[in-house]
């Protein structure tokens, strides 16, 4: 496994990087959706994030990365009580993955050779406490999407098939990327992502040159390049860790709650998920920026990513939804 491109070396794309950092601080925000043209570094950022994140501690051999021995599912039959540190799991969900591979299925090897009924965990188990990355999420088969929605919402994977009855925790941050030209995402799944960002190729020539220069340096001499960026990556990681600590201490003034509600009403977003995500991500942002109180600035910074994918489509409004959010934010927050 070669070292992925360092997170901090990604030029520009601040909205995408910010959204990913926020979900690392508070996984409860509920995932990031990255939509954009080809060749804008979507996949690069996700893989870089995996390398950036601090390791987690888990029971050795536990298929769902449980932190405590009592959380390990019975069927796993864990013998050891040793706690090991492993990198934050970032699991790729390939497009053509079968249902069996995603939720898990009867362990064919044991069934065939020993005639035992045993459960072979799938991708959802491995993604527990980590990230589930779906490239080209808009092309995913409908029945897999339904399944993911269900699990992402409940945080638990229930398998009832082939005579098995198994459940295990599956709490993960969904990261999806895709190119909207190739297909749209169903609104049900859209709403399930906490944050959404649209990435574009940088238009500034200098910025583009810098991208190529860094990528070229990386490909020419990976070792030296990684070394150069290690300290900045570590700095971000430490800030994420500090922000996780600080998160419960962030105070939220009453007026900010009112602002959240007013924003969502003005935008006509469906349901209350908009307010909740807006609040959570704004708090994570405040923690990341070493602030102790939530302010309008935080709301303003995060509102486009938190709300733009929750609007009802207005076929007569040609401006993108991000523009509409920005307009409304300016109206409501002044």
């Amino acid at each position, binding site marked *: 496994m070669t070292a992925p491109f360092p997170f901090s070396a990604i030029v520009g794309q601040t909205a995408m990087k910010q959204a990913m950092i926020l979900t690392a601080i508070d996984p409860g925000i509920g995932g990031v959706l990255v939509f954009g043209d*080809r060749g804008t570094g979507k996949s690069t950022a996700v893989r870089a994030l995996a390398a950036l994140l601090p390791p987690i501690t888990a029971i050795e051999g536990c298929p769902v990365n449980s932190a405590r021995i009592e959380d390990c599912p019975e069927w796993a039959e864990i013998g050891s009580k040793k706690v090991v540190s492993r990198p934050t799991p970032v699991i790729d969900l390939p497009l053509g993955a079968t249902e069996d591979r995603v939720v898990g299925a009867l362990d*064919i090897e044991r*069934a065939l050779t020993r005639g035992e009924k045993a459960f072979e965990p799938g991708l959802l188990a491995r993604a527990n406490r980590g990230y589930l990355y779906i490239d080209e999420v808009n092309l995913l088969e409908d*029945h897999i999407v339904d399944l993911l929605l269900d699990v992402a919402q409940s945080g638990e994977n229930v398998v009832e098939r082939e005579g098995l009855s198994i459940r295990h925790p599956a709490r993960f941050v969904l990261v999806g990327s895709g190119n909207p030209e190739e297909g749209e995402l169903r609104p049900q799944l859209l709403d399930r992502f906490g944050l959404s960002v649209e990435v574009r190729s940088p238009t500034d020539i200098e910025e583009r040159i810098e991208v190529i220069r860094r990528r*070229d340096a990386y490909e020419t001499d990976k070792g030296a390049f990684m070394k150069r960026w290690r300290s900045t990556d570590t700095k971000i990681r430490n800030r994420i860790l500090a922000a996780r600590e600080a998160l419960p201490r962030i105070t939220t003034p009453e007026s900010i709650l009112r602002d959240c509600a007013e924003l969502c009403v003005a935008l006509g977003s469906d349901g209350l998920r908009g307010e909740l995500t807006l609040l959570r991500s704004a708090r994570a942002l405040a923690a990341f920026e070493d602030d102790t109180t939530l302010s309008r600035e935080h709301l303003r910074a995060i509102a486009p990513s938190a709300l733009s994918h929750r609007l009802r489509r207005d076929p007569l409004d040609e401006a993108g939804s991000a523009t509409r959010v920005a307009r409304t934010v300016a109206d409501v927050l002044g």
Partner: protein
Amino acid sequence: MSEAGDRWDAACLALRLLAVDPDGLKGLCLRARSGPARQTFLTLLDAIPLPRVKLHPTITDEQLFGGIDLTATLAGEKIVFNQGLIENPSMMVLTMAERAGSDLAAKLAQVLDGDKGHCLIMLDEGAEPTEHAPPALTERLAFHVDLDGLGARDLTPVLFDHESLTAARARLAHVPAGADEVAALVTLAARFGIDSLRAPLLALRTARANAALHDHDRVTAEDLALAVSLVYPSRATMLPADEDEAPPETDQPAPQENPKEGDSNEPSGEIPDEMLIEAVRALLPAHLLDQLVPAGTTRGASGSGGAGARHKGNRRGRPLPSRHGRIDGTSRIDLVATLRAAAPWQPMRRRATPLAKGLLIRPSDIRLKRYEEKSDRLLIFLVDASGSAAMSRLGEAKGAVEILLAEAYARRDHVALITFRGVAAEVLLPPTRSLVQTKRRLATLPGGGGTPLASGLKAASELALHARSRGLSPTLALLTDGRANITLEGSADRTQAAMDSETLARLIRAQAIPGLVLDMSARPQDTLRVLAAQMGAPYLPLPRADAKRLSSAISSALEG
């Protein structure tokens, strides 16, 4: 040197560079029908120092990524795994790439992005311009080679010197590229309207490979020019800004023999990348102007080919891999797949229910067949029946629609009819295949009143989107004289009415509904031409049309 010979040399050069750096350049997309050129080129692929693996568009995951070998496992009572075709670094040769679906494209893209040393050769045998390899893959590959139309006499014999290639491979890591070179490549990509940052990256690697091949100490201007001429032309979406003429709207491809399309207008002013631009321009395909994608529109907006879009069903069409499901009376069981799914469990189930006879099949074994079929086309006629559209012209329009209906019937297309007059639009006939019904409705179509063009467009776009959601591929034919005078709300206000219809025209374009606009006024109108442009539809003025001409105009525009 002939134009065809140049193309062949460029292709061989691309292959040589790929042989130097297969991992970094990722591969090559070859567009050619079978013939001597393609055949010769394929034998040359041996120069690439990777094992060759052949893929086809309907390849299954198990073949690609490996899986359990069912037969061997059952026979040996021990689990046996098949190795996937792409487990180890290899040169993947994807045949019939134009038929590869987006899911296969995504999987292969993931493999390429994985940096495990794979390289992909795509053989695109598309016959029509609309048939092409998946863009998600072409985008990732450095070279696009078009060998269509090359005969055996164009092929100069090529011999690859394997020793020099090996030597170049060893040198590759030590060729430095300066900041100026990188800057030049990026600037140039921007001037050709190439948005993706993969293009300059691949060009840089190409330049480096070429420098290594020719034993240059560093990347030189010559290497850059060559890299640009190999990587950029197929990706260009515009010619450099000094030539800002709009791409012509014609649908006929320019003749192949016209190699200097872009040379008509020499660029002026002091441009540092002059040489590089010239290098690309000479290699731009002759019909490029027709293929340029106008910025801001999606690729789908221009497609109005005869066949409709694809969608999945469970009754007809090309088979897809079957999948787990319940028998619900609407789908068919894939018997073989079901038996395969049930086979491994037989010993266990027999142990559990010793008295049962025959095969023990559980609901979870059931696999259902799925198919992908081409959807039917829907022709939506949007006919202006206002007073201004003149009763005489309305008769002609009716005649044209009738002739088209006969053709539509022959092709099994669906048709729908919407008229607008007075203050609102009316769906006279929802999508149908019934010829008789359509004729009857059309004959009784009354005329007179205002021109609520915006309402008509709105009704048509709604119908089109609805039809699309049911799996039809809608096409819109608007017959009008363009003097919109009724607003969307139904009030008489000429300015507002014009604005409303323009908004809706843009909306139709944004939703990629193909169409055409027929001007049936006595004198062609500029407003309608503008409207057609906003709709992204061809505009046909027909000052003295008879039904026959109208119909042939529509047919040729839709076929194009």
